[in-house]
C-alpha cells in the first residue's frame, strides 16, 4: 500500500469523524441555550455603586463587602426562573456563610420592592440597575445569573441560570469551604 494522494480524502474524513466522536462523548445532554463560559473568572470584580432598591438615597457598593465572600445575584421581577431560585437564596442567607448582594437588572423599583416584601428579602444589599450598565460590566446577558466573589474581590465562579441547592453546594459552597 503505497501512500499516495488517494489516501488523503479517507484520512481527512476519519480525522474529522474522530473529532466529532470526541465532541459527542464530551457533550452534556440537551441543547437549548449554549452556556457561555465566563471570561471574567479570575479577574477582579468590577467596582460599582448604585442606589439601593429599598431606598434610592442609600448607595450600595461592592466595596462595602470587601473581605467577605459575596454571592452576586442578578435578578429581576420579570424573570421566571428567579422566582424559582428565590427560596434557595433565602436558604443561603440563613446559612450565613456569604454575603448576598442582589443586582436588580433592568427592572422597576416599585415592582422589586413588592416582590421582596411578598417573598422575603435574602439580600444583604440589593442594588438597582435599571439600565443594565453594571450588568454589562459583568458580562451579564440575562437573568438569573450568579457570581461568586472571593474576599479579595476576585470573581471565582459564574453560574448562568437559576441557583439550585445542588448547584450552590457543588459549585459555590465548595469553593467557600475549600478556601477557608
Amino acid at each position: 500500500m503505497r501512500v499516495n494522494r488517494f489516501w488523503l480524502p479517507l484520512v481527512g474524513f476519519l480525522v474529522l469523524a474522530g473529532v466529532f466522536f470526541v465532541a459527542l462523548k464530551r457533550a452534556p445532554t440537551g441543547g437549548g441555550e449554549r452556556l457561555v463560559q465566563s471570561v471574567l473568572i479570575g479577574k477582579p470584580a468590577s467596582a460599582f455603586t448604585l442606589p439601593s432598591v429599598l431606598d434610592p438615597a442609600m448607595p450600595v457598593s461592592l466595596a462595602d463587602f470587601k473581605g467577605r465572600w459575596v454571592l452576586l445575584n442578578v435578578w429581576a421581577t420579570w424573570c421566571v426562573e428567579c422566582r424559582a431560585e428565590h427560596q434557595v437564596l433565602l436558604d443561603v442567607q440563613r446559612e450565613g456563610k456569604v454575603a448576598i448582594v442582589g443586582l436588580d437588572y433592568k427592572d422597576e423599583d416599585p415592582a422589586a420592592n413588592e416582590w421582596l416584601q411578598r417573598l422575603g428579602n435574602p439580600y444583604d444589599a440589593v442594588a438597582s440597575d435599571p439600565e443594565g450598565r453594571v450588568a454589562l460590566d459583568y458580562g451579564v446577558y440575562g437573568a438569573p445569573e450568579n457570581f461568586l466573589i472571593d474576599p479579595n474581590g476576585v470573581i471565582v465562579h459564574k453560574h448562568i441560570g437559576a441557583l439550585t441547592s445542588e448547584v450552590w453546594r457543588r459549585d459555590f459552597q465548595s469553593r467557600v469551604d475549600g478556601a477557608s
Partner: protein
Amino acid sequence: MLPELGQFALILAMLLAFAQAFFGIAGPARRNERWIAATAPAVAGQFVLTVFAFATLVYAFVHNDFTLRSVAGHSNSALPVYFRVAATWGHHEGSMLFWILVLSIWTVAVAAFSRRLPRAFQARVLGVLGVLSAGFLLFTLATSNPFERLDRLLPDGVDLNPVLQDFALTIHPPMLYVGYVGFSVAFAFACAAMLEGKLDQTWARWTRPWTTVAWMFLTVGIALGSWWAYYELGWGGWWAWDPVENAILMPWLLGTALIHSLAVTDKRGLFKSWTLLLAIGAFSFSLLATFLVRSGVLTSVHSFAADPGRGIFILSFLVVMIGGALALYVWRAPLLRSQAGFDLVSREAFLLYNNILLVIATFVIFGGNMAPFLSDILGLGSLSVGPPYFNPTFLVSMIPLLALVAIGMHARWKRGNLGESRRVLLVSLGTALVLGLAMAIGIYGLHDVRAPLGTLLGFWIILSSLVDPIDRLRRRLSLSAAVVGMTLAHVGLGLLTLGITTTESARVERDVALAPGQSAELGGYRFTFVKTEAAEGPNYDAVRADVQVSRGDRDVALLQPERRTYWVQQTALAEAALGVNFRRDLLATMGESLGKGAWSFRLQVRPLMSLLWLGAALMALGGLCAATDRRYRQAVRSTATDPLASPARAGSAVT
C-alpha cells in the same frame, strides 16, 4: 392499531432493505443471477411498506391521534389540516421517516427508469442504496420511532411551532429532502462503478440526469427556505449563514461542481477522479447535514432537539458509508488515469477551475461553520462566526468563479483557442460594463464600491449565455434541451448575481414609531400608517395594521402587517407585509404597541429583490430542462474495450 401496523411495516421494510443490500452487492460479486434478479423486488417491497408506514403516520396526525408521542408533541386539533400533514415531518422522528420515504422513492425510480443499465451494475447501485436504507431504518426504529405511544392520554397536542405554520415551510423540507437525499443516487452510481472497477463515459452519461434532477430539487428547496426566511422573519434577511443553512449549501455547491464535472467525464472521459470524489462528497455533506441538525453539535434555529446518543449512532453510520466509499476510492482511483489532453483555455480547463473554486467555497464555509465547535472542544475558548466572516470569504472564491463562467461558456473542448469567440466575449464584456455601471451608479447611486463589480459580472454572464443560443436560432438551427437548460441556468445565475448585488447595496431600512395618520419617508416612498383593526385566523388572534405606501402622488401598495397571538402556545408572532413588483420589494413589520394607538414599525425598500427568486427559479428550470435531453434516453452502447486504461471513447453514435 394503525400506527402499530405502520411500525410493523417499517420493520419489514428494514428487513427488505437488508435483503436488497445483500442481493445487490453480493449478487454481482458472486455472479449469482438469481440474487441479482432478487434486488428489484426487494426495492419494490420496501417502497410499498415504507409508503404504507408513512401514510399511517400522516393519518395519525390528520386524525389527531394524541396517543402518539409525535402527534402530541407537535400538533394540535386547532391546527389546520394542511399543517397537520406538514407537522408529520416537522419534527425529528417524523422527518427521519420522511427521509427514508424519499430515499425509497429515489430507489424505486432508479429501478424503474434504468432498464438499460447492465443488470449487474444496476444491482450494485440498488444494493448501495439498500445499505443506506437499511442503516436509516435501523436508526429510526432503534432511536427515533415515530410510532411510539405515550403512556397517558393527553386531551390535545402541544401544537406545531407557529413559526413553522406557513405554506412555504410545508414544501421547503420536502424539496430539500428530495434534493439532498437524491444525491445518494450519484453516490450509489459512484460506489457501483468502484465496486465494478469500471468507470467510463457511459457511466457518466447514466449518472448525469439523476444528479441534475436532484440538484434541481435542492436548488428549489434552498430558495424556498431563503424566501420563507425573507418574508416570514420580517427584516428582509434572506441568508443568515446559519449553521444549518450552511450545512445544506455545501452539498449544493459540490452538487453544482458534480454536474459540471460529469459533463467532462461524459464528453472526454476525463476528471474521473474528481467526479467520483464529488459524487461521494456531495452526498457525504448531505449526510453530514442530517447529522449536524440532530446531534446537538451545532445549535441553530433549525436544530431538532439535541441528543448526543443519537449523534453517535448517526456518526457511526456515516463512518461506515463515507469511509467505505472513500476506501473504495483508495482501491480503485489509481486505475482511472486517462490519457486525454486539453489546453489552457479549453472548456475542460475552465471546468477544472470551476471544480476547484466550488470546492474551495465549500471548504471555506465548512471551516467557518465548524470553527466554533472545534474551538470549543479543543479548549481554545468560545468563538462565533457569522455573516461578517462568511460574506467576504465566500466572495473570495465566488467572484473569480462568476468571471470565469462568462468566459468558459465559449471555450471549446480540448483546444480552446477562443478565436472568434474572443470578439464576442469582448463585446459582451464591454456591453456588460456599460449596463453594469449604468445600473449600479446611474440608477441606484453608488452606495457600495462592490456594486458595479456585481452588476458587471451579472450582465456579462447573462449576455454571454445568450450569445450562442441566439446565434443558433438566427441560423435556424434547433436547440437541444441540454443547451436550453444550460442557457436558462446560467442566465438564472446572472440574474441572481444582479439581484443580490442590487438588493444588498441599495436597500434602505428604518425603524420608526408612528401614530395613526403619521408617515415616514424611505427610499423615495412614503409609508403612511392608517389604522389598526382586529383580525382572527384559524388558530390565532391578530392585530392588523394598514400601511399605505405611495410614491409621489400615486398610491402604490397597501401593506397589512399583523401581530398574531397563537392560542395554543401563546406566542406572539409578527407577520411581515410585502408589496412586491419587479423593481422593488416594500416591507413593513409591526413592532410593539406604543400606547395611544401608536406602533413601532420596521420599514424597508429592497430594490430588485425579485431577481433573486427569478434567478433561482431559472436555475432550477434549467436543470430540469437539461435533464430531459434526448441523449439520456437514447440507448448507449457500452464500450467494448477496457475503459480503465485508454481514453475512453463513447464509441457509439451518441451526440
